[in-house]
C-alpha cells in the first residue's frame, strides 16, 4: 500500500479524524538509553539491565520473551506508568523522567493508548461511554467525544453494540472496545500488553488485523508485548528480552 492510498483511505473511512498532529512528525517516537529498573529494598530484583531501544514512528513492533524477563516492565516504562531506576526515556523527544505527575498524566492522555490483557472497561458505562472517556479526560465536550467515539467503534465493527455495557458484550467485543478506547485520542503510540492473551484464535486474529489496518492507515506506532509467536512474526520487528536485557 502506497502513502497516497493510505491517505485516501483515511479520508474515505473516517471524516471526523482529520487532525493527526501526533503522527506527522519525523524521527523516533521512543528513544531509550541505559534503562535499568531495580525492584525491592533488601533483596534487589533487576527487572531491566541497561536497555537501549529506539522505535521509529509508524513501526509495528513486538516485544517477546519468557515470563519474568522484564518485557512488561519495559512496556510500562514506555507507557509512563512506571519510573526508571536509571537511564532516560524520550517519548516524542520529551524526557519522561523530568515530567511532573500532572505532565505524565497529560502525556498518557494525549500521546499514548493502552490495551491490556484484561479490557478493564468501566463496568457501569456503555461501550460508547467507555471510548469517550479518554476524550472527556482530555477536556473535549460530550458531543464531540460521542461523535469521535462512535466513529472509532464503527471502525472496530461495533457500530451495533455502542449502547451495550461490558457485561453484555463477549470477551472479544470488550477487547475491541478497549482497542477503540486506546485509539480515541488518536495517540502517536499504542501499547498492548498481552492484548490477545485472553482471546480465542479467531478474535485474536481479528484484533491483530484491526491494529495492523490502523497502523497502516494512520501511521500510528504500535508496541505489543506477546507470548504468541505467530502474532509476533507478523509484526515489522521483534525485540527479544531475556533476564532484563535485549538479546535481539
Amino acid at each position, binding site marked *: 500500500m502506497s502513502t497516497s492510498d493510505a491517505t485516501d483511505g483515511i479520508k474515505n473511512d473516517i471524516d471526523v479524524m482529520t487532525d493527526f498532529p501526533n503522527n506527522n512528525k519525523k524521527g523516533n517516537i521512543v528513544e531509550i538509553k541505559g534503562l535499568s529498573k531495580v525492584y525491592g529494598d533488601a533483596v534487589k530484583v533487576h527487572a531491566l539491565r541497561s536497555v537501549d531501544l529506539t522505535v521509529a514512528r509508524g513501526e509495528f513492533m513486538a516485544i517477546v520473551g519468557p515470563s519474568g524477563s522484564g518485557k*512488561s516492565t519495559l512496556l510500562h516504562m514506555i507507557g509512563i506508568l512506571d519510573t526508571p531506576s536509571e537511564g532516560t526515556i524520550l517519548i516524542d523527544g520529551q524526557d519522561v523522567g523530568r515530567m511532573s*505527575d500532572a505532565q505524565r*498524566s*497529560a502525556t498518557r*492522555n*494525549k500521546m499514548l493508548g493502552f490495551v491490556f490483557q484484561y479490557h478493564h472497561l*468501566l463496568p457501569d*458505562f456503555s461501550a460508547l461511554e467507555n471510548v469517550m472517556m479518554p476524550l*472527556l479526560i482530555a477536556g473535549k465536550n460530550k458531543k464531540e467525544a460521542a461523535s469521535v467515539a462512535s466513529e472509532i467503534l464503527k471502525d472496530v465493527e461495533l457500530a451495533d453494540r455502542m449502547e451495550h455495557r461490558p457485561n453484555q458484550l463477549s470477551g472479544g467485543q470488550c477487547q475491541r472496545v478497549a482497542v477503540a478506547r486506546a485509539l480515541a*485520542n488518536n495517540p502517536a503510540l499504542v501499547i498492548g500488553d498481552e492484548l490477545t492473551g485472553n482471546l480465542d484464535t479467531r478474535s485474536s486474529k481479528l484484533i491483530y488485523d484491526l491494529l495492523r489496518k490502523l497502523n497502516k492507515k494512520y501511521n500510528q506506532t504500535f508496541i505489543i508485548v506477546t507470548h504468541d509467536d505467530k502474532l509476533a512474526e507478523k509484526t515489522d520487528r521483534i525485540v527479544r528480552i531475556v533476564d532484563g536485557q535485549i538479546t535481539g
Partner: protein
Amino acid sequence: MYEHKIAFRSVIAKKRNTFFAVLAVALAVGIIILFMGMISGFAAEMIDATVESSPHITVDPEDDDDEYIHLYDHFNAIIRQTEGVLFASPVLVQPTAMEHRDNTAGIVLEGIDPRSEIDTMRVDRHLLKGNFTALERSYRGVVLGSILAEDLDVGIGEKVDLVKPNGETASLEVIAIISTGTPKDETLAYARLDLVQDFYDRRGQVSHFKVRVADIHQADKIAADIQRDTGLEAISWMEANKDLLDLINTQQVVAWIFYLMIFIVAGFGIANTLYTMVIDRKKEIGMLMAMGASRKSISIIFLIESALLGIAGVLLGFLIAFIGAYFFSLYEIDLPADVYYGVSTIPIDMQTRFFVYSGGFSLLINMIAASIPAKQAAQMDPVEAIEEE
C-alpha cells in the same frame, strides 16, 4: 467534568453499597435531630413548668433569725411599684395539722390574699372542683390539694379542722380542690391570710412575698431592684432553680458529645463504604490513570461520591426526623410526675437550626472520613492496580 459522571454512575450502579451508606448517614442525622428536638423540648417544658409553678421572684425576710416580715403592707406597696413587677402576693406559711373525722394529715398551710395569689401564681388554672375565688368572700374557707383531699377523704362543702400544737382548733369549710400535678398536691392548703394571721397570732406578718414579673428573663435584675429598695432578700427563679438550669446546660454538653460520637460512627460507615469501593475498583482506577486521569481527579471522584452519599443521607435523615417527630407527638408516655413536672407526652421542639447543625456537621464529618480512602485511591500505583489479578 468526567469526574462527576463517573461518581454519579458509580453511586447509582453500586446499589447495595449506596443503600447502606445512605442509611447510616440518614439514621444518624434523623436520630440526632429527634434527640435535639427532645432535649430542647424537655428543657423548655421543665423551665416552663418551673417558672409557672414557682414565683418569678420570692422576697424573704432579710434576717435569717426572723422567719417573718413585719409591717408587710409597707413592703407590699414598694414591691408593687418596682419597675417590671406585675403582681405581688403576700403569704404566711404555717406548717400544721389538719383533721377530718378520724383522718389527720400534716399540711403546709398558706395564708393568702386570694386575688393577689390568683394574679401572681395563676393558681385558679389548677382548679379541679369548687370555686377558688369564693375564698375572697369566705373567711372560713379553705382550698385543698387534690391528694390531700383524698387522704382526708373530704369533699366540697365539708368541714376540716386546723389543729394547733396546744390542741386549739379552727373549723374551715372546703370550698375548692386544686391539682397542680406536683408533689405539693399532698400537703397544700390555702386559707385567707387574715384567718391564718389571726389563728396563729401573727397579725401584720407574712413569711414572704411571691412576685410576678412581665419578662421572666429580667427576673434577676428586678429581684436586685427589690432587694435594694426594701432591704429584704429577693431571689429570682433563675437563682432558685440554679441546679435545674445547670443540669439542663450540662445535659446539652453531654448531648453534643453524644452527637459527635454518632456522627463519627456514621462517618466511618461512609469511609468504610468508600474504602470497599476503592479496593473493588482498583483496576478501574488504574485504567483511568493509564487513560491520563490525574491523581487529583481520582481523588475528586471519590470525594464527589462521598458528597453524593452524604447529601442523600442527610435529606433522608431530615425525612426520618419529620416522620419520627410526628409519631412521637402521637405517643403518650407515663413519666413520674415528681421528676418531670407534669410532662405527659414527649415534648419535641423542632427547630430549623437543628436541621442545619445536624446536616452540616454530618457532611463535614463525611468529607473528613472520605478524604482517607480518596487519598488512598489517588496514591495508587497504576501498574500494580492494573496488573493485580
